[in-house]
């Protein structure tokens, strides 16, 4: 088959059909040329479309990741535990409804755990810090605690690894005293953190308040969200509990902001490089494709097509290719982003529809550019020169 373009496909047996088509509106010929051009040069059209799909997919995946990576990493950072600490003003205890107030201010945007601390004495009179807390909340807040066995019933205690040999070397039950009142507890397990917790004894908050009559003095909050959202939560908590100091845990907040910022910047640089490469790949493929069809171009021109029609034809072709490639690529890209999310963050990256217009516009721009460049070169050439193959 010669490369004379779509018109060459009309044979003698199709003459009647051709006659009927001659009266058909102008647009149908235009569409037929578009469709036939794609079908007749399947190989080249497919490779151009493939390049477009890959570029759009990579761009979609990168943009999706870029938008989502902050949320994903913030979640990892919440494993560092509290980023806000609420303490009673001047070291005083908090009102009994403080935790409920904090919970309502959080409204599911994080987790809070109360801590009450007193210095109790063991049976041989040694001072030791005894803390009362809500174990279910601590389990979620302080995931780095290495605990052998969490207490499950009342009067059970979690013993710090350094405190264990002092109070219960044989893991036997023991007595603690505070201001003349004694409490009999059984060790349930040990806790190891490498910090102050190792020298303490933890009991449930109910046991703690019944024994000491002291309300919790500290609430630790791991609030999720951006720095502005965390600041908003701090404000709400400060309003809800006026008798308290609300402080950010600065090293966590600063570390988080730094790591997140640098990761996003790296991602942005990588995304720019990759999208640039993919766009250039599309550009070179498409320019080759259009340049290859200079004979079609010359024949159309020789048959009397106006410059505007030719421009319109190649532009429409490029636009269709760009849009199709962008749509398929968008779907593939969402798939890639979701897969990366699953593999790396164990949570899918949510598809962002806001990325679609960006990818679509970018794809169309690249395809149009790659149609215009060779067109501009060919316009100056006489059709006869091209048709002679020079």
């Amino acid at each position, binding site marked *: 088959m*010669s*490369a004379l373009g779509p018109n060459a496909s009309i044979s003698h047996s199709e003459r009647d059909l051709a006659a009927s088509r001659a009266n058909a509106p102008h647009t149908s010929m235009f569409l037929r040329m578009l469709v036939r051009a794609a079908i007749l040069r399947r190989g080249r059209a497919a*490779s151009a479309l493939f*390049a477009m799909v890959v*570029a759009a997919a*990579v761009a979609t*995946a*990168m943009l999706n990741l870029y938008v989502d*990576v902050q949320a*994903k*990493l913030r979640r*990892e950072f919440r*494993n*560092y535990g509290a980023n806000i600490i609420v303490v009673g003003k001047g*070291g005083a205890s908090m009102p009994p409804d403080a935790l409920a107030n904090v919970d309502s201010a959080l409204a599911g945007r994080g987790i809070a755990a109360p801590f009450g*601390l007193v*210095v109790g004495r063991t049976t041989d009179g040694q*001072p*030791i*810090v005894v803390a009362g807390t809500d174990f279910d909340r601590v389990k979620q807040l302080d*995931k*780095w605690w290495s605990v052998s066995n969490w207490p499950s019933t009342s009067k059970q205690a979690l013993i710090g690894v350094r405190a264990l040999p*002092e109070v219960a070397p044989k893991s036997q039950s023991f007595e603690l005293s505070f201001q003349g009142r004694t409490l009999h507890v059984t060790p349930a397990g040990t806790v190891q*953190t*490498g*910090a*102050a917790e190792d*020298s303490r004894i933890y009991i449930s908050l109910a046991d703690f308040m019944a024994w000491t009559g002291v309300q919790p003095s*500290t609430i630790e909050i791991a609030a999720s969200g951006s720095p502005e959202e965390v600041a908003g939560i701090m404000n709400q908590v400060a309003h809800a509990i006026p008798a308290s100091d609300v*402080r*950010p*845990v*600065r*090293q*966590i907040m*600063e*570390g988080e902001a730094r*790591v997140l910022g*640098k990761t996003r910047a*790296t*991602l942005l*640089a*990588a995304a720019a*490089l*990759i999208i*640039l*490469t*993919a766009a*250039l*790949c599309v550009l*070179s*493929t498409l320019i*080759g494709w259009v*340049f290859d069809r200079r*004979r079609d171009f010359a024949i159309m021109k020789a048959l009397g097509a106006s410059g505007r029609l030719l421009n319109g034809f190649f532009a429409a072709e490029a636009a269709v290719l760009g849009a199709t490639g962008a749509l398929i690529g968008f779907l593939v890209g969402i798939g890639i982003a979701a897969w*990366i999310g699953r*593999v*790396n*963050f164990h949570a899918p990256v949510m598809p962002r529809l806001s990325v679609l217009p960006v990818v679509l516009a970018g794809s169309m721009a690249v395809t149009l550019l790659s149609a215009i460049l060779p067109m501009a070169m060919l316009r100056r050439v006489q059709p006869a020169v091209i048709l002679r*193959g020079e």
Partner: protein
Amino acid sequence: MFVRLVYESFRRQKRRKLLAGAAITLGVTVATAMIAVATDIGDKINRELRTIGANLVVTPQEDSLDVEIGGVNLKPPTDGAFLSEADLPKIKGIFWHNNITGFAPMLPVNVEVEHEGKRLDVTLLGTYFAKPVSYGKEEFSAGVRSTHPWWKVSGAWPEDSSRNVLLGERLAARLGGKARDEITVVGNPLKVSGILSTGGAEDDQIVAPLFLAQEILGRPGAVRRVYVSALTKPEDAFARRDPKSLSGPIYDRWYCSPYPQSIAFQLAEAIPHSHAEQIRQVSQNEGAVLTRIEGLIFLITLAALFASALAVSAAMATTIFERRAEVGLMKALGAGKVAVASIFFAEATLLALLGGLAGFAVGGALAHEIGHSIFNSDISIPPVLLPVILAIAVIVTFAGSAMAIRRAVALDPVFALRGEL
């Protein structure tokens, strides 16, 4: 003849070769930059994570229990054991000394402070700020300015050898003290050089050079604990094994891996009568964050390699496709498929090597630029990477050209010469 064909092809088709070469250069640039960033990102993020604080703590082995609530130590000050300040430089002598980014000794002392008639019982924390320490030939600076980077001072940081101190901001508010005031701590007149804000217990304390705290306590050379910041590798099942249960090469492998556990083990070995432990809040979580970021960048590097491979093959396919007529002529003159293909492959190899070299240089500069603009430190490319990159460039160029070359040599010379596909 073969060499001449290739040479003339490069000489006469400068534009086309330049285009293909540019595509390869770009592809290799992106690949090199991304590989360099990916191999270094772990170290860079690890250093950023050190903002969160020290991940290891060294305490005396025979220490009594800490009785500490909200930063106030209720234990009698002379109770318990101490580490010796003279042993501290040995921290820089351990196997993984290059991974130690900083350390800060701490000595809390309960004191009474007096300022303008107000008296308060507070904790005075003795530490290093940025003290020059030397071990062997190595000189480095130790102290809270590197291990506790979130500490902010309004005023000036005290010198480690001066009798100047920092006043915690809440304590300063209670005392009504400000920078350049004089305060009296158990009879010693001290000068406040700045107000310290940390968001933690230190806001209620006085932070002083270590020797002052030792002098007030009456124990020269004493240190209660040392915080150590170290670059570590995320721990795995192997890291958690007990070194005492390991032997021979397995023990060596454990000892020579920068796990938090093995660095803690080496610290305890280096400092007599000490016990070193990881601070789980910091060390456990940084492993998770690090793994996630490294994994992300690794996957993206794969995407970058894929995109650049595609760009290179697209460019190669186009250039070869444009030379159908040439292939037809060669074949019409009697060249076999092998001869034609080998000319194309030779040209591809040459292009890949030239483009690869240029791309490696540009990619290196790009990685350097990324390192400086994002991390304020250098990302350098090991020269070992050059042959690897060149090999990848050649392979990708070959793979990208293979399809086009096969189609070109399969072409009937008659059609090719008439310009028909």
